[in-house]
């Protein structure tokens, strides 16, 4: 029981990263019917922006203009880092759409996929060229405190990470359901051609979709940095691919599915690692996912129709 609960909590945290990144894949697929294969690297860029923003804020705080208790100051810096980095990463995502994908709207889907991979490589090597090959260690913004419940240990970091992730997903849900832009996104996911006739500037909606996905990826990057404070330029590759798998598992274009599948992937990985040797984690976890997809090729919430090409 303790074993189960302990791993459940670990899995929730681990799944949060996948879920936040998978949402970006799924939204873009839903609206533009393409997979943004640079998204994992957009997550990496988000983590780096978070690193620079928080380091900068810490330096400013060290000047001592504002006197606050250390804990409060750090929490404030974390919140500001989240907001600023999410905001900045929005523009990274929008630039990817504008420069990389928009010229290819009419091109075959394979061109978009290749472009995505190349943008990814540009982001990785660009980072390498600008900031060097050394790993960065994400500043400590939360002093770890551990709570014990019935033999299960929970850190304040884990609670914060899961809560922030859930909050962001809720915010996304409200955005998609209640704003006119979200409504336009949903409409575009069903039929793209008519949407401009409702007076909707679809290029703006496309930008917004990339921007939102990238903001969530930045949040994932910062939360990851809080939990595992080592950043390197290639950190986005494996995470990106795994979140992509989660997006497929959730059902292409399904926001709810992507969120749930992200958590599920986290659960599978954590429990596999807890039971089997951890070197076999990916082998076993992805075999399980392969099995699920054999039974449900269109994922949990995807539609079993053959996707038509649009745009």
């Amino acid at each position, binding site marked *: 029981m303790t074993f189960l609960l302990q791993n459940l909590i670990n899995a929730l945290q681990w799944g949060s990263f996948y879920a936040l990144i998978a949402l970006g894949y799924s939204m873009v697929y839903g609206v533009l019917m393409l997979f943004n294969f640079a998204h994992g690297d957009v997550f990496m860029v988000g983590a780096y922006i978070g690193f620079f923003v928080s380091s900068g804020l810490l330096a400013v705080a060290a000047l001592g203009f504002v006197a606050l208790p250390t804990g409060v100051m750090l929490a404030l810096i974390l919140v500001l880092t989240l907001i600023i980095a999410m905001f900045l990463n929005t523009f990274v995502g929008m630039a990817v759409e504008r420069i990389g994908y928009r010229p290819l709207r009419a091109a075959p889907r394979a061109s978009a996929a290749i472009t995505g991979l190349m943008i990814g490589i540009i982001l990785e090597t660009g980072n390498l060229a600008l900031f060097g090959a050394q790993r960065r260690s994400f500043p400590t913004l939360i002093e770890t405190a551990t709570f014990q419940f019935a033999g299960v240990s929970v850190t304040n970091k884990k609670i914060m990470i899961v809560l922030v992730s859930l909050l962001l997903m809720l915010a996304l849900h409200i955005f998609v359901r209640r704003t006119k832009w979200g*409504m336009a996104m*949903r409409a575009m996911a069903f039929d793209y051609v008519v949407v401009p006739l*409702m*007076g909707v500037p679809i290029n703006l909606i496309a930008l917004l979709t990339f921007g939102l996905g990238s903001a969530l990826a930045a949040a994932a990057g910062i939360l990851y940095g809080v939990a595992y404070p080592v950043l390197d330029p290639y950190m986005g590759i494996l995470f990106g691919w795994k979140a992509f798998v989660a997006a497929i598992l959730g059902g292409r274009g399904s926001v709810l599915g992507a969120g749930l599948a992200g958590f599920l992937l986290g659960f599978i990985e954590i429990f596999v690692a807890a039971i089997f040797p951890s070197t076999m984690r990916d082998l076993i976890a992805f075999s399980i996912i392969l099995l699920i997809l054999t039974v449900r090729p269109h994922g949990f919430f995807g539609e079993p129709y053959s996707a038509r090409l649009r745009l």
Partner: protein
Amino acid sequence: MPLLRVDSMTHYFGGLRAVHNYDLAIEPGQIRGLIGPNGAGKTTIFNLITGRYTPTEGKIVLEDREITGLQPHQIASLGLGRTFQNLRLWRHMNVLDHVKMAHYSKITYGLMGAFFGTPKRTREEAEIEDESYSLLELVGVSHLADQIVTNLPYGAQRRVELARALATQPKILFLDEPTAGMNPEELAQMMEIIRHVHAELELAIFLIEHRMKVVMDLCQVIQTLVFGEVIAEGNPDEIRNNPMVIDAYLGKEVEV
């Protein structure tokens, strides 16, 4: 002064000339028809005027404004609405949401409104909902407002599409085969609705139709298009009796 004017519009798809020297002038409140055999370029003309394609040559003027080369959403917000030959509804969205979506440009509340339910949002949403309901009423599907569109019979889906196009408050409405695939009963109802909408909202209508009965009954002026060129233009009687039209399009099946 015509509401919509097209001057010598020509369009090429690669080396293929799809539309040649096309002229059009639609007066406010007029119902116009565009007929022609399959592949004559009728839908291409719709796509050119509504901005999906940019014409190779020619000029399109809506009211006083030249709209050639504008984006589809810009042309739509200037007052040009349209429906499609094949239904283009949003699967899994309900009827009311379809019509509400068409109010996109009128929604002014933003994130604050969406997240905190400000009075402004409540007011705007209520207004839009009212307008949407009255449009659904106009086309006779207001009782289906909360239904998912894919669950509706074909005739009702067509009406939803019409209501959605009307919600953008067009000054001129393009209907691409509004009665395609309808049974005689649905057909009669659709014609009645088009007349009703036309009288009620005082808009101009430009429609593509294959069924002679519909075109002849509804339209005041009809153009006949063959291989991208207008071969005849006139009132229903003139079209019915024009030997070139009979030859090229109506054939021997139509009673003259």
